């Protein structure tokens, strides 16, 4: 009976039948591996990934809820309902102040609403952030002109 050989991704390579010798002989000489026998380094690597997955999964429900809030806020912002959008962004940022997507959205809503007294808050939210060209295209039309000069352009390498 033939021994089937399965090679790896990326190309490859029949193990030469002659190198294997007689297939039946090969089967006699080699004991099948048991289903549970994996090398220690594979088990260790799997455990590290499992631990990372467990750790990350703990915060998954919170992250999903925050991402939904962000999606809701973005929809309101796009629809021009800036007051309700700000409320949603605020809810998100209370739970996750490090969310740059939330800070950017909130800044946009603040700049775009009719109340210019809060614009400084919008600017403060952007402090230290690196904006890509899409972020800038979104913000620039609603950003007060005097704020634009506070941003520096970093050339792409």
């Amino acid at each position, binding site marked *: 009976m033939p021994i089937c*050989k399965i090679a*790896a991704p*990326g*190309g490859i390579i029949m193990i030469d039948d002659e190198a294997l010798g007689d297939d039946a002989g090969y089967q006699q000489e080699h004991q099948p591996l048991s289903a549970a026998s994996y090398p220690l380094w594979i088990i260790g690597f799997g455990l590290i990934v499992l631990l*990372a997955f467990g750790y990350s999964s703990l915060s998954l429900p919170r992250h999903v809820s925050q991402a*939904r809030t962000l999606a809701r806020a973005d929809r309101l912002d796009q629809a021009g309902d800036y007051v309700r959008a700000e409320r949603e962004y605020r809810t998100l940022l209370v739970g996750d102040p490090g969310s*740059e997507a939330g800070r950017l959205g909130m800044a946009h809503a603040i700049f775009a609403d009719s109340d210019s007294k809060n614009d400084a808050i919008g600017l403060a939210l952007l402090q230290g952030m690196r904006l890509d060209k899409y972020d800038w295209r979104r913000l620039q039309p609603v950003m007060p002109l005097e704020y634009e000069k506070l941003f520096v352009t970093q050339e792409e390498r």
Partner: protein
Amino acid sequence: MFFIPGWLIELLTFPGVIVHEIGHRLFCHLTGVPVYAVRYYKFWGKPSGFVIHGPAPTLKAALLIAIGPLILNTLLCSLLTFSAVVPLFILKDSGTAFPDILLMWFGISAGMHAFPSNHDMEGFTDFLLEAGHGDALVMVAQAFALLFKIANFLRVVWFDAIYAVLVAAFLPLMFGLF
């Protein structure tokens, strides 16, 4: 479009190679096919990984063993990246934790090595021919194999990475997070 040597991509995504081989091995065990030797990953190895197993007893077993990596790697890519995609790419959390980065790397690597290799699919079509299955079935299998050959060929234009990204985006899209 830029090109990176294949060996470097394989090195950077080596967890995907390991999962690919585990995918073959797992479905061998599930279908009762003996496994004699496994190379999970060897840098500069030709091949970098392989599974040597006994003959598949049925068409179903042969198919599952051939496409095992497609199932396992895709599932792992989708699941592992899901919890990392949200903080990394949706919320764009500035305080991203190391486990999320690790999961993203592992998940995308798995996704990039999901396609059965040309050799995997040749093994499957050879099985059909040797087992004397009907022409229609062989033709379907050959068409299937051709699809994967095209997918493997398109790796030069990052089709494997595009597939991994699409798989990683699937669950967040299903949950309406984008």
